[in-house]
């Protein structure tokens, strides 16, 4: 086992998103001896164990993986954001309509999209991207929707005027 082999294996274990078995590593490094790979992994395990740092190399599910030590999970939980959620295409479209046409009432949104949009508007409101501005003084007094401050923050905009205009969108998205 050479020092370089150990380093290569360390970098592989580092980038892998699941435990790596010696067999798997062998397939990536066909020139290496199987015994050398095992030896390198053992040595890495020892090094991280004696170092007693923030993470260790642990044998798990038939392979090896770097894992944080459980003592620090409290802090790690503070760091880890929940999985980012994406906005669905329909939600994004509805948001775009509200952003560009605000203040707007639901029936106008639905007129443009051609489909019922109540559920999507509710989701956008729950995510605090859209808010109710008031009621329109027409029969039925429908709610008027507009975007929120969080909307501007999400898209890194100073104010609504910074939204690219349709013409600018055209100019940028035309691939010619």
């Amino acid at each position, binding site marked *: 086992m050479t020092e370089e082999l150990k380093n290569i294996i360390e970098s592989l274990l580092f980038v892998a998103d699941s435990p790596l078995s010696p067999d798997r590593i062998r397939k990536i490094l066909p020139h290496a001896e199987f015994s050398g790979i095992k030896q390198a992994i053992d040595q890495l395990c020892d090094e991280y164990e004696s170092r007693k740092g923030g993470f260790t190399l642990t044998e798990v599910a038939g392979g090896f993986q770097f894992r944080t030590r459980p003592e620090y999970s409290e802090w790690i939980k503070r760091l880890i954001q929940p999985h980012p959620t994406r906005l669905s295409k329909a939600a994004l479209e509805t948001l775009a309509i509200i952003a560009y046409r605000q203040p707007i009432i639901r029936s106008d949104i639905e007129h443009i999209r051609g489909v019922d949009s109540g559920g999507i508007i509710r989701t956008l409101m729950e995510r605090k991207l859209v808010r109710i501005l*008031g009621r329109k003084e027409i029969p039925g007094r429908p709610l008027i929707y507009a975007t929120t401050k969080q909307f501007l923050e999400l898209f890194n905009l100073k104010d609504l005027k910074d939204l690219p205009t349709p013409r600018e969108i055209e100019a940028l998205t035309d691939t010619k």
Partner: protein
Amino acid sequence: MSNDIYKVKLDNIFEGPMDLLIHLIQKNKVDIYDIPIALITDQYLAYLEWIESMNIDLAGDFLVMAATLTYIKSRMLLPVHDDEKDEEDPRTEITRPLIEYLQIKSVAEKLADRKIFGEHIFARTPCKADLSEESDKLYIHVGLFELMEAFKNIFDTLSPEHRVDFSEDRMSIKDRITEIIEILEEKGSVIFCDLFPEESAKSMLVVTFLAILEMVRLNLLRIVQHTPTGVIRLFYI
């Protein structure tokens, strides 16, 4: 001439006039601070002719540069009078942007030479074991670009009468601000909905709203709403 044509390789189809000029300067091995403008201009124009003879559409940018070069060439031919000695070399007009462009090219090359993340250097892919539990705090992953695309898709399907001409609106926002200020100067405050009479056109609603936003930004307005669904009132500061 036919021999020359054979010499032109495919990568000699230049992306822009600057690329072509730099190619000509390098080919002739001349000093960028002392460009033989007549020679370079002639070769530039010859290239454009060749391109046109190949039925390749020329971008307007190439023609603008041709005009600039021809103009500089003509100025270089004029006799210099004593009182004009201090005047700038006409070639500066082209030398300066060329040097700026060359600097950018050199920087772009240096960037390309760097160790690229995801190509030479990698980080960990956070694995599921790290993400112990999902919190209910959501965060949304979306860029302005996606929003723009969404709007463009919608915009393309809109019938013309639904489209709002934004450039027109811009003009009228200032007018609307003046109108609102007049109301406020008279009354001191106004109810938000009163600024949106039901008979007004859709574009007028947008203009009024943008006017209000602009006034808030300029610190002309304070907006007050006592309960979440209550009346929104605008005060003149």
